[in-house]
C-alpha cells in the first residue's frame, strides 16, 4: 500500500481512522517514520504529546478503535478503560504477556499478534546457537582473533579450547512444539538428530515421541531447546530437577524467555560442570547477564536478538499494515488471537 505522505493529503487524512501508538516503534528508527504507513489509517502518537498518558487518552483517544503496541508497550486494564471505543489491540510481537488479555476478553476487544512471521528467524538462531555451542564457533573465532595459536602445532592434540561434540545422532528435546519448535525440529532432523518434545498437549499429527513431563524429556535427551512462551506455568519450569535430569553431558538452548529457566540454578550447574553448556538468547533480567557466564567458554550468549533481521522486520511491517487495513475494512484479520496460556 502507498504510504500516506502528509502534506497534500491532510484534508483526506482527517477522515482516516486512527491507530494509537504509545511509544515510537523501533522500526521507525531503523526504517523511517513511514514504515507502518497506509492510506487507510493514520497514527495517533501518544509520545508526541506533553500530556501524561491518562490525560492524553481522555482528551484525544476517546474515539480511537485500534491500538498498535510496539516495542513491548504494555496494554493494561487501566489504559483500556480510558479508551471506550477500542476494538482491536495489534501487537508487533508474537508474545502476548504485555497485554491484559482478560480485560480484552471482557470488553470483546480483538487481540492480534504477528503470528509466525518471526518463527523462521528464531528457529534459525536456535540451530545457530546449538552448532556454535557444540563446535566452539564463537570461542574459536575470538581465540583466533586474539592471535592465540592453538596448541595443536606443538602437542598434536586437538586445540586448547576443547574439541567439539558431534551433532548428528544426538537426542533433541524440544520444549514447546509450536510454530518455532516445529521449525527447529525440521532443521535438526536434517542434521540426523532424533527429536522428541514436551508440550501442553500431545500433537496428534506429529510423529516425534511426546513426553508429558519436561523432566522426563530432559532425562531422555542430550540437547534441550526451550521454544515455549512464558506463562505462570512455565515460569522457572527448567529448574534444578530438570537440569539434573539433563545431566553432565547435556546442553540447553533458550530462545523463549529468560524466566522459563531458573537462571541462578542454571549458572550454578554450568559453573560446577553439572551440565555441559548453554546457548542463551534470553535472560531473566535483560540486559544484565550473570557475570559468571561471561567467563565461560561453554556458553554462547546472544542479546535477545532472535528476530532482528531486515527481512523479518519488513515482513512484519507488511503484516501489521495489512492487518490494520483488514480491520478497518471489516475484513478477516490475517493473524488470529493466540491464547496466552
Amino acid at each position, binding site marked *: 500500500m502507498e504510504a500516506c505522505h502528509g502534506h497534500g493529503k491532510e484534508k483526506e487524512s482527517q477522515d482516516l481512522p486512527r491507530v494509537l501508538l504509545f511509544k515510537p516503534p523501533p522500526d521507525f528508527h531503523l526504517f523511517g517514520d513511514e514504515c507502518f504507513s497506509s492510506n487507510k489509517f493514520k497514527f495517533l502518537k501518544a509520545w508526541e504529546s506533553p500530556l501524561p498518558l491518562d490525560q492524553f487518552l481522555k482528551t484525544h483517544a476517546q474515539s480511537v478503535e485500534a491500538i498498535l503496541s510496539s516495542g513491548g508497550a504494555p496494554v493494561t486494564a487501566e489504559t483500556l478503560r480510558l479508551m471506550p471505543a477500542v476494538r482491536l489491540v495489534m501487537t508487533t510481537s508474537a508474545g502476548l504477556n504485555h497485554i491484559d488479555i482478560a480485560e480484552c476478553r471482557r470488553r470483546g476487544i480483538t487481540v492480534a499478534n504477528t503470528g509466525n512471521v518471526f518463527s*523462521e528467524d528464531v528457529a534459525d538462531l536456535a540451530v545457530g546457537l546449538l552448532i556454535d555451542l557444540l563446535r566452539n564457533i564463537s570461542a574459536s573465532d575470538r581465540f583466533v582473533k586474539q*592471535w592465540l595459536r592453538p596448541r595443536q602445532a606443538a602437542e598434536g592434540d586437538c586445540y586448547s579450547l576443547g574439541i567439539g561434540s558431534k551433532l548428528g545422532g544426538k537426542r533433541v528435546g524440544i520444549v514447546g512444539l509450536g510454530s518455532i519448535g516445529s521449525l527447529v525440529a525440521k532443521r535438526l532432523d536434517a542434521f540426523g538428530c532424533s527429536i522428541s518434545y514436551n508440550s501442553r498437549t500431545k500433537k496428534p499429527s506429529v510423529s516425534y515421541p511426546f513426553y508429558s513431563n519436561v523432566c522426563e524429556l530432559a532425562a531422555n535427551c542430550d540437547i534441550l531447546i526451550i521454544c515455549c512462551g512464558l506463562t505462570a506455568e512455565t515460569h522457572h519450569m527448567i529448574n534444578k530437577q530438570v537440569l539434573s535430569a539433563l545431566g553432565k553431558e547435556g546442553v540447553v538452548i533458550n530462545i523463549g524467555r529468560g524466566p522459563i529457566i531458573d537462571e541462578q540454578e542454571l549458572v550454578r550447574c554450568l559453573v560446577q560442570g553439572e551440565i555441559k553448556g548453554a546457548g542463551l538468547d534470553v535472560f531473566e533480567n535483560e540486559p544484565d547477564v550473570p557475570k559468571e557466564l561471561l567467563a565461560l567458554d561453554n556458553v554462547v550468549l546472544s542479546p535477545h536478538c532472535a528476530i532482528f533481521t531486515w527481512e523479518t522486520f519488513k515482513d512484519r511491517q507488511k503484516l501489521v499494515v495489512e492487518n490494520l487495513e483488514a480491520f478497518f475494512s471489516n475484513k478477516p484479520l490475517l493473524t488470529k488471537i493466540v491464547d496466552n496460556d
Partner: protein
Amino acid sequence: MDNNSNNIIVLMVCPVSNYLEQEIEKSFKVFKLWHFEDKEQFINTHKDSIQAVVGSAAAGADAELIESLPKLEIVATCSVGLDKIDLARCKEKGIRVANTPDVLTDDVADLAIGLILAVLRRICESDRYVRSGEWKKGEFKMTTKFTGKSVGILGMGRIGTVIAKRAEAFDCIIGYNSRTEKPNLNYKYYPNLIDLASNCQILVVACSLTEETQHIVNRQVINALGPKGVLINIGRGLLVDEHELVSALLQGRLGGAGLDVFEHEPDVPEELIGLENVVLLPHVASATVETRKAMADLVVGNLQAHFGKKPLLTPVV
C-alpha cells in the same frame, strides 16, 4: 596381526592426536618427525626402514619425501583431502594411499551451516557484544535472515551433497558447480562458477584441492558473489585467492566470509582479524571427539589391513 608387525616402522609426519599415536603404537613402531630438529638427517638415518607414512591435512607425502623412502609401501592420511600427497608419484611407485572419507562428512557439513549462521546472524559478534557489556548500552544490530536464501555449492561430492540437504531444511534454494553435472539431483547445475556466484547469496567451497582447482575462487568469482554475498570455505585455503578475498572484504565488494581454512595455516591474514563480518576458525571442521576417533581408527585400520595383506578399508590409490 602377528607380533612381527611391531617391527614395522611408521613415520608420522605431523601431530594429529594422542589417541592416534597410542593406537598406532599398539601395533607398530612409530617415529614422530616433529620431534627431530634435523629432519633431513633423521630421514637419512632411517630411510631404509620406514614402510608407512601417516599424515593429515597439515602434512603428507610430497615427491621429495616419497623419493627419500625406498621402502615406503603406504601413505595413510588422517583427512579426506589428498592435496598434501603426491598421488601420481605414489601410483607410479605402487605405493598405496588411504584417507578418511565419510566419517567426517556430517561434521564438516554441520560446521559449514554453523559458519553460515554465524556470519549471517552475527552470532560471534553478538556473543562479544554481551561479554563486553555493550548490551547494557543498547540493542544489537539488525542481521540477515538465512531461511530461504540461495546457496551455491562448489563441489557436489560427499560433503557438498550433505551440506545441500541441511540447507534444504532451511528452505534454501540450492545451486551447484562441479566438474560434471550429477544425475538425479534436484538442484540447478551451473557449468560456470562465476554464474553460480552471480546467482547465489552464499557460496560454500566444498571441493577438493588439486592443481586445477587452486585459486578457483578468484577475483571474478568473488565480485560476482558481491557486496551482499557471503563466502564459506570448509575445503582448503588454496581454493580461494586469499589476497583477493581480503581485498574484497576490506573494500566491501564481498559481504562476509566464514573460513575454516587458510592458505598458510596456522597463519591468518591480519586484516581479517578486525572484521566483524568474518568468522575465523582454526581448521576444526572434523574436530569432534566422535569423528576424530573414527578418523584415527580408520587410519590404523588401513595400516593393519595393508600389512596384514588384506584389502584397504578406504583406498585412494
